[in-house]
């Protein structure tokens, strides 16, 4: 279809702002991830607890957090919660919290899966030499679980990174926000969104590559005896 003049200059001109937006995206996703790790760890501990009622509550919390769309959760936190309980959250904070909750549900399963993957006999042997439950976990089970947990945690992070694009809707000045207002003024949505898309793909591929290297290093000389 001739007649459309691709205007890639706009992209080059907006690079500084796009870079700023990228930084904000990274910030909100990293904070969200940190919250997710904490929330996920708590849920995982509850999920693996010996107390039935604690397990059940944890399962409910995890399932709820996993089933609600991030977008709905975001609005619920930013508009709903703050209005109902008169808490003043910035858009960034609301975004990080929503990411933390959703990510936390996935991290809970990642923690649980990693811990369960460690052979049951390892725990038996650790207890048999007289270690307490806590020491058995810290010194024997968890070090082995971490090898499985880290690559999957990176996957969760990538998911959060992509999910974080939503926060532009409540006003966080991330890459998409920048792309939106630039394309509005210069009629170049195709170029701008393509650029943002490429940026994300590059980001995702690099992180995946790093995770692969990390996995290789973790597995070096340490496979199961």
């Amino acid at each position, binding site marked *: 279809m001739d007649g459309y003049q691709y205007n890639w200059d706009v992209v080059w001109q907006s690079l500084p702002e796009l870079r700023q937006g990228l930084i904000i995206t990274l910030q909100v996703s990293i904070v969200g991830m940190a919250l997710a790790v904490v929330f996920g760890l708590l849920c995982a501990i509850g999920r693996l607890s010996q107390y039935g009622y604690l397990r059940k509550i944890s399962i409910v919390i995890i399932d709820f957090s996993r089933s609600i769309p991030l977008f709905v959760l975001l609005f619920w936190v930013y508009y709903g919660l703050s209005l109902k309980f008169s808490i003043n959250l910035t858009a960034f904070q609301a975004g990080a919290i929503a990411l933390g909750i959703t990510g936390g549900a996935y991290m809970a399963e990642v923690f649980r899966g990693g811990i369960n993957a460690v*052979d049951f*006999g*390892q725990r*038996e*042997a*650790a*207890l*048999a*030499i*007289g*270690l*307490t439950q806590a*020491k058995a976990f810290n*010194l*024997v089970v968890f*070090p*082995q679980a971490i090898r499985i947990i880290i690559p999957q945690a990176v996957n969760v992070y990538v998911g959060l990174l992509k999910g974080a694009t939503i926060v532009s809707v409540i006003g966080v000045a991330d890459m998409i926000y920048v792309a939106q207002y630039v394309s509005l003024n210069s009629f170049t949505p195709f170029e701008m969104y393509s650029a943002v898309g490429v940026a994300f793909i590059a980001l995702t591929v690099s992180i995946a590559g790093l995770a692969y290297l990390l996995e290789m290093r973790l597995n070096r*000389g*340490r*496979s*199961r*005896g």
Partner: protein
Amino acid sequence: MNTTLLQLKNVGKRFGDHVVLSEINLEIAKGEVVCVIGPSGSGKSTLLRCINFIAPPEEGEVIFEGRSWKRFHSALNFIANRKYEAQLPKLRAEIGMVFQHFNVFPHMSAIENVMLGLTKVRGKNRNEAREIAERSLRQVGLGDKLDQYPEKLSGGQKQRVAIARALALNPKVMLFDEVTSALDPELVTGILDEMRRLASDGMTMVVVTHEMNFAFQVATRIVFMDAGRIVTIGTPDEIRNTTEPRARAFLSSILG
């Protein structure tokens, strides 16, 4: 009579609705080697795990060195249960256990495997622990493999690490759970010889095994189990000539 070191009184264990052990009564004197034999699923491995409370029995008690260990069941005994649970590591430090699938810690070298109990359970400092661990590993013939990681060791070597790990804590009793079943045939004799050496050094041992020759040669008493119960106990000669039908059937199918 020798002093009784370990006694199981009316021990019972179930997993959910499935009863694995019932009415287990057994007295073991110091220096005895008790071999437990029986068909698969008879509860032999679970019996061992009840002794050091890795699988706490629902019923009965375990009396070790004069002290009774039992688990309380109603929710009212919540506090009592928490208290005895906190004491369990002390019990387990006095009882050594070697597993069928070795369970050596893959993220630590051989010597670190042995040192773990010494530093974290006995509270020794690293130098002392290292000395003791080294000695322990030399005794099982692994003096040249101290810093190797388990993935580089053969099955027999891993099992030796496991034995050294247990022995380093100077236990009063050693539990062996079919420790040669997962080994290649040519490595089995090596481990059995280690166990013979331990027995002749006077270690009290409870050995679950399928190695009948070993059992009849080394045991002071043999326990035959079936379907979660002890069917008959006796010296090797008594068992060899037993008239108990299930034991008879089992022995003839194994020994021919």
